[in-house]
C-alpha cells in the first residue's frame, strides 16, 4: 500500500459562456444561395411558415467559426471534475464499459430501430431482449423480466404498481396501504412507495447494522402491502435473516421485493427467488456493465417477478413462440405502461454483451473480487487517523462497500467530509461519495471498489485519503480551502440554492441580471466571474 501520489494540475481556462462569445458576422458554415430555378419554384421561403409561427427577430446566436466552437467545448471538457480518474462511487457500482459494446449499440440495427415497426422486422433486437431476460431469470430465479423502466427508481415504481394491481385483484388494496422499508434501503424504495400512494413504514437499524426481526414483526399487519428492502444495504451490510423476513411478510399477506441495487456483492451467490422474494430489480447500468453515465442515463432498471405476478407486469412483454419473437400486449391485468415501448434497448444490448462476455464464471469472479477489494480497502482506510466505520461493533462482514465516517477527523481538526471531497480532486481523483440522506453516520463516505480497478488504483485511493488526513492534522487550512489544483475554486455554500444568483437558461440569466442592475445588486455578475 505504498502508492506514490500523482502530481496533478487541472487546466484553468476561465472560459466564458458561449452566449458571450463570438464576433459580429463570423460564421461556421456559409450556405450557397439557392439557384434561381429553385427560388422561382419555391418563392419566398419564409412565407411557407405561417405568420403566427414566424419569429419577428433573428435568433440571437453566438457568431463563431466551427473550430472556435470545437475549442470551446474541448476546453469545457478539460475542466470536468469527475469521471476523469479513479471513481469509487459507493452504491453506483462504477464499471468499465467496453468500447466494443458501445460500438455495437451504435450500429444502425439499434439506432435506426423504430419502436412502431413491425415485430417481424426486428427479430434480432427482440431476441437480445429475450435472451437478457433468460439470463436474469437464471441469476434471480424469477419467472419473467421486463426492461421498460428507464432506471432503478422506475423499476422500484414498477414494483409498487404491480403490488397495487396484485392486491386490487384480491380485493385487498384498500386495506393494504402500507409498504415497509428500512432506513438504509435504496432511497427510491420509500420514494416510489409514497409516489404510488402507499404509506411508508421505516425500520431503523439495531447494533448489528440492520433492523431486528422484532422491529419487522412490530411493523407487519393486515395493512402490509409489501416489503421493499435492499440487501446488502446502503452501507454494505448484509442482513442474514432475509428468509425469515420474507416468511413474516408473506404470513401477513404482503409481497416481498428485493432491490438488488447492490447486487455486485451477491451475484451468482444467491437468487432472490430462492430466498422467497416475489420480485426483484437489477440495474443494467450499474451491475451489468452498461454505462452509469453519471446520473441521467440512459439507464435500465430490469424488473423481474414470480409467475404469480407476471399477469400484472407492464406491457408489452417480449415472448418467444415457435422460434419467433413477438410483443405480447394482450394482457388484461397488466399495470399498463411504466415507460414508452420497450425501454432503453441500447442499454439492454450493452448489458447483454457484457453478461455474455463475462459468462457465469466471470460473474462469480467479479463478485468475489468486488467483496475482496472492499475488505482490502477497509483494512487500509481504518488504519488512517480520523477514520472510523459505521457500526464498529457489528460482526457481520461488509460486502462490496463500507460506510466510513470522518467524524473523528472533524472533531479533532475541523476538516469535514466535504473538505476531504474537495481536496481529493486536487490529486486528480474523483471526489468520494458520501451517503444517501438521511445521514445516520455523521460525516460519511462510502467507497465501492468494484471489480474494475486493480489493486494499484485502490492503493492510490487509500494513499490520497491518508495524505489528506495527514494534512488535516498538520495544516487543516490547506484542506479547508481546497481545491487548489482544480479548474475551479470551491463554491460558496448556499449560493447554489439562491434562485436570485442562479439561472438555468441564458434568457433567465439576462432577465435576472437586468433586474439586479436596476436594483443595484450584482449577484449574477459574480457567477459569471
Amino acid at each position: 500500500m505504498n502508492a506514490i501520489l500523482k502530481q496533478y494540475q487541472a487546466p484553468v481556462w476561465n472560459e466564458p459562456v458561449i452566449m458571450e462569445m463570438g464576433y459580429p458576422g463570423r460564421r461556421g458554415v456559409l450556405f450557397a444561395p439557392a439557384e434561381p430555378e429553385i427560388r422561382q419554384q419555391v418563392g419566398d421561403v419564409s412565407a411557407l411558415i405561417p405568420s403566427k409561427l414566424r419569429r419577428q427577430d433573428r435568433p440571437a446566436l453566438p457568431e463563431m467559426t466551427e473550430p472556435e466552437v470545437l475549442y470551446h467545448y474541448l476546453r469545457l471538457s478539460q475542466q470536468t471534475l469527475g469521471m476523469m480518474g479513479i471513481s469509487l462511487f459507493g452504491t453506483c457500482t462504477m464499471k468499465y464499459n467496453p468500447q466494443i459494446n458501445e460500438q455495437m449499440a451504435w450500429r444502425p440495427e439499434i439506432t435506426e430501430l423504430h419502436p412502431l415497426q413491425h415485430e417481424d422486422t426486428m427479430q434480432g433486437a427482440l431476441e437480445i431482449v429475450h435472451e437478457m431476460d433468460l439470463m436474469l431469470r437464471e441469476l434471480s430465479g424469477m419467472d419473467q423480466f421486463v426492461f421498460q423502466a428507464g432506471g432503478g427508481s422506475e423499476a422500484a415504481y414498477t414494483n409498487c404498481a404491480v403490488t397495487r394491481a396484485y392486491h386490487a385483484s384480491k380485493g385487498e388494496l384498500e386495506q393494504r396501504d402500507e409498504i415497509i422499508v428500512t432506513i438504509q434501503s435504496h432511497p427510491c424504495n420509500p420514494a416510489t412507495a409514497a409516489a404510488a400512494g402507499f404509506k411508508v413504514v421505516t425500520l431503523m437499524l439495531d447494533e448489528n447494522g440492520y433492523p431486528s426481526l422484532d422491529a419487522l414483526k412490530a411493523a407487519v399487519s393486515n395493512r402490509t402491502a409489501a416489503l421493499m428492502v435492499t440487501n446488502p444495504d446502503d452501507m454494505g451490510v448484509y442482513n442474514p435473516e432475509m428468509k425469515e423476513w420474507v416468511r413474516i411478510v408473506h404470513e401477513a399477506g404482503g409481497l416481498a421485493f428485493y432491490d438488488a441495487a447492490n447486487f455486485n456483492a451477491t451475484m451468482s451467490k444467491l437468487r432472490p427467488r430462492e430466498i422467497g422474494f416475489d420480485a426483484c430489480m437489477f440495474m443494467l447500468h450499474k451491475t451489468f456493465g452498461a454505462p452509469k453515465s453519471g446520473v441521467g442515463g440512459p439507464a435500465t432498471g430490469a424488473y423481474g417477478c414470480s409467475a404469480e405476478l407476471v399477469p400484472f407486469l407492464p406491457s408489452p412483454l417480449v415472448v418467444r413462440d415457435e422460434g419467433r419473437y413477438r410483443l405480447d400486449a394482450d394482457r388484461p391485468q397488466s399495470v399498463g405502461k411504466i415507460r414508452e415501448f420497450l425501454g432503453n434497448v441500447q442499454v439492454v444490448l450493452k448489458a447483454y454483451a457484457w453478461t455474455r462476455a463475462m459468462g457465469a464464471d466471470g460473474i462469480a469472479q467479479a463478485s468475489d473480487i468486488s467483496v475482496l477489494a472492499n475488505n482490502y480497502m477497509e483494512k487500509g482506510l481504518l488504519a488512517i487517523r480520523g477514520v472510523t466505520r459505521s457500526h464498529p461493533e457489528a460482526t457481520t462482514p461488509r460486502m462490496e462497500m463500507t460506510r466510513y465516517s470522518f467524524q473523528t477527523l472533524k472533531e479533532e481538526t475541523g476538516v469535514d467530509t466535504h473538505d476531504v471531497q474537495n481536496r481529493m480532486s486536487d490529486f486528480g481523483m474523483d471526489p468520494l461519495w458520501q451517503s444517501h440522506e438521511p445521514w445516520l453516520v455523521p460525516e460519511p463516505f462510502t467507497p465501492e471498489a468494484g471489480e474494475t480497478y486493480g489493486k494499484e488504483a485502490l492503493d492510490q485511493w487509500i494513499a490520497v485519503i491518508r495524505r489528506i488526513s495527514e494534512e488535516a492534522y498538520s495544516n487543516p487550512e490547506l484542506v479547508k480551502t481546497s481545491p487548489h489544483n482544480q479548474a475551479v475554486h470551491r463554491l460558496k455554500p448556499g449560493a447554489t440554492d439562491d434562485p436570485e444568483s442562479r439561472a438555468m437558461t441564458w434568457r433567465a440569466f439576462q432577465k435576472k441580471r437586468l433586474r439586479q442592475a436596476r436594483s443595484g445588486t450584482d449577484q449574477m455578475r459574480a457567477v459569471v466571474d
Partner: protein
Amino acid sequence: MGFIVNPLAGLGGPVGLKGTDGDDIVREALRRGAFPVAQQKAVEALMRLSTIVPSLRVVAAGGAMGEDAASDAGFLPSVIHRPHGVPSTRSDTISAAAAMAHHGVDLILFAGGDGTARDILAAVGDRVPVLGVPAGVKMHSAVFATSANSAGLLAASFLAHEPATRLRDAEVMDLDEDAIRTDRVSARLFGYARSPYERRLAQNAKAGGGPGEDAALDATARQVASAMRPGRLYILGPGTTTRRVSDALALPSTLLGVDAVLDGEIVGLDLGESELLRQMKGHEAHIIVGVLGGQGSLFGRGNQQISAEVIRRTGRERITVIASIEKLIALSGAPLRVDTGDAETDAMLSGHFHVETAPGRRTLVRVVA
C-alpha cells in the same frame, strides 16, 4: 458570543453524586475529592472554535465562570459579570446570561449540565440562541452538542452563518435532584431554548436542502389533527411538537402542560393526573406526545402528568408519537425511554413503537424502560 462556564458542573458524577445543584452537595463533592471537568471541556470547545473564527468577540462571565477558559483558549474576553463569591452560584449564571442578552450576543455558549441550561433559559428564554458544551452529570436537555469539540464546531458554523446550521426548539429539562439522590427519577420540562443544530446533508452547499423538519412536523401535526374523531378525548402532551397539533386545530395550548381536546374544543389546559382521569370518563381516550429531550424520552420525564394510570386506561394502540426523523437519527440508535414509575406500564410500552415522522410516513423505534 456570550460564554458561561459552570465551574462546578460535572463535579458530582465521579464521586457518586447525581448532580451539584445546591451548596451542600457542592461542598460534599469537593470533600469527596471531585475535580472540576467543566473548565477543561470549555477550553477544548473554545480551542476548536478559535481555529475557525479566531477574531470572534467573546463576552464572558468573570474568572472561573468563563473568563479563564476563554483566555486559556487564546481569546481576549470582555467580562460582563463578576461572580459575587467563590464558588459562584446559580444567581451568577442567571445574571451573566441576562447581561449577555442585554448586550446583544448572537449566541450563548455554556459549559455545564441541565441545571446550568435551566438557569440560562430562565434568564434569556428564547430570545438568544443557546448551545451547551456537555460537562454536567445530568444532560437530559436537548441543547447540548455531542462533545466539547462538536460544540465548538457547531457554534462556529452557526456564528459563520453556515446554511446547514439551523435553529430549533430544544427542550430544557432537569431532574428533581432531591428525588434522584433517593433513587427516584423524575425529570421536568422547564421550557424551550432556541439551539443551533447541523442538518446532515449530502451537500453542505445546499442552503436548505428541502423544507426541513419544521415543515414535516407541521404537516404531520395537520394530519394527526384531521384524523381526530368526534366523541374521543385527545390528550396532548407538553412541548412544541404537540403544540403544532393545537395550532393546526386553531386551539390554545400550554407549552409545558398537558391539554385535552374533545370535539374540536379545548376541555382543559395544563391538566394534572386526576383531572385527566376525570376527563377520560365516558370517552375513548387518545394520547398524542412528542419525544422529549436529548435522550429521547417518551413518558415519565417531562410529561409525568400523563401517569401510568392514564396510559394504562388509554391503551398502547391509542398512543400517537410525533417526532422529526432528524430527532430520531440524532439518538444514534439509542432507544426511546419510558419511565412511568410503574413497572407493568413500562413493560406494556416497551418494544417497538410507531413514530409519525411525516404525512404517510412512520418509523419504528425501539422503546425501553
